[in-house]
């Protein structure tokens, strides 16, 4: 990790390496000091390139400044993109689990035509049973006493929520209002563990039916969950920069 200080100081890391190292800096004072020194060194390389700016720049900048509100001094660290809460509130567990099951059941029952026969009722009941089965892991995960949720905004609009439980060794990713991924592409969810390659948690299902959600198990050691756009059907390894990434540990 320490050897990344040089690359970090000159912005030569990929987005997720950068985010990871940034977190590392919070815990490693000697690294933070080294980064300060190497950044100051890089600044000298930058200043050595000084050149006369075009004549119109000053007026343009001063005009823009007159119309720009300054940021209030903030005690929050800059670039904080995700919000985290330690526990899922009880009511959320009930509401989300119930809504998930009811949503699918209702779609099954009322999505087509009204029930007219015992046969159709049986089919509906089967669909409800399937829905319960399908959402049982979701409900179980949400109800886990150590379930943690992390929300993140995507750089392309919309966002997602990760729910993770160490005791169940499971996680799920729920998308919200992500823009359409377009023809021939899919959203794919990745589990990142320091020191190993990103592992796919699956491709987000295309339709809105049942919600855009993936579940994964064996999440031990995962510190970050990321979302990328991949060729249709997903890739064995990410081929683009994440549009969303949240820290889970």
């Amino acid at each position, binding site marked *: 990790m320490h050897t990344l200080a040089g*690359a970090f100081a000159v912005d030569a890391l990929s987005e997720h390496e950068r985010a990871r190292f940034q977190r590392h800096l919070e815990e490693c004072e000697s690294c933070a000091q080294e980064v300060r020194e190497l950044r100051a060194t890089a600044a000298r390389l930058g200043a050595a390139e000084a050149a006369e*700016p075009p004549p119109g720049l000053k007026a343009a900048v001063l005009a823009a400044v007159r119309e720009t509100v300054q*940021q209030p001094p903030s005690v929050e660290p800059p670039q904080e993109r995700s919000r985290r809460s330690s526990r899922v509130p009880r009511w959320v567990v009930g509401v989300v689990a119930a809504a998930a099951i009811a949503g699918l059941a209702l779609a099954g029952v009322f999505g087509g035509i009204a029930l007219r026969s015992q046969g159709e009722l049986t089919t509906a009941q089967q669909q409800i049973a399937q829905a319960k089965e399908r959402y049982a892991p979701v409900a179980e995960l949400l109800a886990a006493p150590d379930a943690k949720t992390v929300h993140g905004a995507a750089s392309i609009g919309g966002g997602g929520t990760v729910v993770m439980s160490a005791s169940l060794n499971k996680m799920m990713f729920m998308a919200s209002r992500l823009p359409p991924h377009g023809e021939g592409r899919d959203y794919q969810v990745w589990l990142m563990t320091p020191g190993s390659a990103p592992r796919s948690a699956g491709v987000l299902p295309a339709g809105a039916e049942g919600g855009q959600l993936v579940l994964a198990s064996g999440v031990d050691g995962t510190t970050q969950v990321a979302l990328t756009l991949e060729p249709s059907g997903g890739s064995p390894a990410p081929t683009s920069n994440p549009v969303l990434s949240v820290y889970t540990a």
Partner: protein
Amino acid sequence: MDESARQDRPRAIRAVGTPPQPVEGPTPEELLVEVAKGDERAFEQLYDRLSGPIFGLVRRILRDPAQSEEVAQEVLVELWRTATRYSPSRGSAMNWAMTLAHRRAVDRVRSARASTEREEKATFEASRNRPFDEVAESVNARWERQQVRKCLSHLTELQRESVVLAYYQGYTYREVADVLSAPQGTVKTRLRDGLIRLRDCLGVMA
């Protein structure tokens, strides 16, 4: 950077030369503190001190004059907007401005590069043989440039290429490794070793 304190700090490699006399008037750090209070006059003075280095660095990375002007403007406005976050304990104003400018320029060049991959490689290959020549003369930067050139020449070839390509071309260390046909781990370490040597040679304090 504190110019006087620099003399007292022992270093493996001596800092070269003596810096030129500072310009009269408030320091950029003092100006930035005033800018944080919404002082537009202080900002104008700060512009005079920092716009040359900001524009020069951005243009070195982006090359395209129109895009460089646009990004330099963004950086300068960002400096105004976020001055409230600055405190002299976070380093010099120049350092702050250069970090911001580099980050913005690199973001821009990377998104542009995604669409013109092949063209960039050609530019990049061509630039390898002339890493620090495309510099418009500017009186204030002459001393600085001399120091940087001298110190860069003290690096090993791989250190120098790694630093120059990552910093001035906006490449990730993986891309640098790819173009230099060197292992990624090696480039990562050379980048760090190279910057540490430069730090000592330039007498940088932070």
